[in-house]
């Protein structure tokens, strides 16, 4: 196991872009935790006397990245926003992993009618454009970051369930599964002890790639004003509230959260890509 891990790391290191992405992702993760302690101001406190203050480019030291249309400190909002975006990302991963694995395992392992019913339902979900589905679910559930997480998770569960099911179909025909069954093992024992560990690799890669997408969809929901309280310092919501002021040259309200979305999505995607490449090479060996 240890040597396998070393092998993965070695291959990953060859991909320079992925290494840079890994460190950016790492910084973002650290910021998500310590950001609220670094933030100089309350991210939701409105100060109408300080609207549209420019930041460091005009020599301001009070508000490093300027203030928005309601006088809130953009730097503080971005720091808090990092935590929110990553929290949503991880929650989406957790929800997707648990439900997607469960559905995929049940469907793949038991097959037959169960499999047909579940897979047709999943086909239906996959037929919707993902953002549209997320919008409908978020609008139905109402406002709240937790509900947005659920809405985004629901659009990924079908794909994960499919991947898991596919792997399970291969694994369950393996001789060691047959051997285990011959020795009298029950279904639960076989699923947890033999099938699950052997389908995890593709699942982990998929979930890593999902983080960037989840952040992007959160921002999209925030931008469209669906499901997320507009006072929340969420990057997409910040973009949305600043967009009317772009034309006035108040670019900093939108540009900084935009850069953060860009960095987060790109770094997590490149990280996931590098990881997949490294793991694939291990599988080939």
């Amino acid at each position, binding site marked *: 196991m240890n040597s396998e891990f070393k092998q993965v790391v070695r291959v990953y290191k060859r991909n320079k*872009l992925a290494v840079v992405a890994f460190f950016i992702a790492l910084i973002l993760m650290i910021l998500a935790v310590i950001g609220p302690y670094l933030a100089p101001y309350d991210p*939701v*406190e*409105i100060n*109408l006397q300080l*609207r549209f203050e420019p930041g460091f480019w005009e020599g301001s030291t009070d508000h490093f990245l300027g203030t928005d*249309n*309601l006088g809130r400190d953009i730097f503080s909002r971005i720091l808090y926003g990092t935590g929110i975006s990553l929290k949503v990302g991880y929650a989406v991963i957790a929800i997707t992993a648990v439900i997607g694995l469960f559905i995929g395992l049940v469907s793949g392992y038991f097959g037959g009618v169960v499999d047909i019913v579940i897979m047709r339902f999943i086909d239906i979900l996959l037929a919707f454009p993902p953002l549209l589905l997320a919008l409908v679910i978020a*609008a139905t559930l*109402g*406002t709240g970051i937790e509900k947005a997480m659920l809405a985004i998770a629901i659009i990924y569960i079908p794909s994960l369930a499919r991947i898991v099911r596919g792997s399970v179909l291969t694994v369950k025909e393996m001789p060691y599964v047959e051997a285990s069954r011959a020795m009298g093992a029950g279904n639960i024992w076989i699923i947890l002890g033999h099938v699950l560990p052997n389908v995890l690799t593709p699942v982990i890669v998929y979930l890593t*790639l999902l983080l960037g997408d989840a952040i992007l969809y959160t921002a999209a929901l925030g931008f469209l*004003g*669906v499901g997320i*309280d*507009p*006072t929340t310092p969420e990057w997409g919501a910040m973009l949305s*509230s600043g*967009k*009317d*002021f*772009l*034309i*006035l040259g108040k670019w900093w309200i939108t540009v900084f959260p935009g850069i953060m979305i*860009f960095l987060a*999505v*790109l770094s997590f*995607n*490149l990280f*996931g*890509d590098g990881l*997949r*490449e490294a793991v*694939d090479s291990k599988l080939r060996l």
Partner: protein
Amino acid sequence: MRSKAGLISLIALLLLLVLFAVGCGDAENGEPAAPEEPDEKIFIIARGTDAKTLDCGYAYHEGEIDLMYHLYDGLVRFKDDESLEIEPALAADWSVSEDGLVWTFNLRDDVKFHDGTDFNADAVEFSFMRILDENHPYYGLGDQGLAYMDWLLSGAIKEVRAVDDYVVEVELNDVFGPFLMYMGIYSQFIVSPTAVETHGEDYFQNPVGTGPFKFDEWKRDEYVQMSVNDGYWGEIPAIDTIIWKVVPDESTRLMELQSGNVHAIKSISPAQLDTILASDDLAMMQVAGSNLFYAAINHQAEPFDDLRVRQAFMHAIDFDALVESVYEGLGTRAVNPMPPTLLGYNHDIEPYAYDPDRAVELLTEAGLPDGFDMDLHVFAESRAYVGRPVDAAEIFKSDLAQVGINANVVVNEWGTHRSLLREHEHQVGFIGWFDVPHPNNFLNLLVLRAVNNQYENPELEELSNKALATIDPAEQEQYYREMQEIILRDVVVVPIAHSDYTAVVLDEISGFRLDSLGNVLAHKVSF
């Protein structure tokens, strides 16, 4: 294995290109296919919302009202200035009986509907009775949820009858102060009976009136197109075609205007003001609006059934700062539901002072020293009475937090928002009102009749009825002043601001008007 990264770069590049294209203004995008005749004068207006019906009897949405003033005429109309005085239109003259109950209108005999049929007294009777009389064969046909005429006049009008080919009598139940003025409002405009009978359920998308423009085409959520009515009884417009284009996003609207794709836009956001004023190619129009942006309180919902909580709410919010930030010079703080330009406005009333300490005291008296949690419902889109409703909600939340009230801002799509308030699922919800500039429409219809408030007060009802039953303006004024005091004291609604109506036209356009009802009037446009 690099495909994902490649894809991302590609998408980023595409996004840049799209931004570029939007910035440059895409002339082909969504533009109705208008015939390319060099002489044809096509006037294009971009608005934020589309109509839902083109039937004047059932129109009430802000996307519909402009259109009504171009497709239809009423018996009377407002003068072409800001005075709000009435002048003859389809009725050449009129008289009222001594007891004030019967109004007789003598109609013009030279008017034809767009479908070629004659305008006459039967058409007037038909237009009114199809809305007001439940036994009329076409009653309720095309109803979209609200008949504005029914709302304004069903209690007042007893009967409308054609007594001769070109003479109509309107009999009232009681003396009704605002009657003649109401006759100039779009819901009392005259439709072609033949067209209603022919099209039936589909009349709402095949409107036929007597107005200066006749209906050509309606592509839902894209545009409504009308062309000039060459047989118009009044002054024939100088333009051949008007296209009412739907452009929901205000930044896009301004860009469309700057790039010359449209000739005029309606409703700008305060944030755009500087840009517009700085441009030599654009002419800005700003009219004091007969409207109100307010927070509707559900008086049956705890804890807002307690007067002290409502008063605490008023003291907790710094309305002046809010209006200054959200409207930026395009609105006035509202003290009263009714705008200060109207008859009978009570200038002696002092608004609730911004006083968070007093708010906390009042909450403590009401048994809520630690405040409470509430939902604050807001709609996402800009509307005639507020450009950035969500900003206002965020400021409310921030101010309320200072006195311990934890407001959860819920942003709803407009349709959902409307029905939520109508079903009283809210505690406090932002909403607005735009109406005829008469105190009755604000103090009575908004405060006492609107379903959002769940509020009853016999004293106010009585004052309102007294004001309606007199034609003497001084007496009306006295009742309306008293009503304003009670409404303020009891915090029936939370008035926030009166918004100015705005439109921007290209400098080369002349004759374009924006009236105090917020209507675009393109009758005299030329370029």
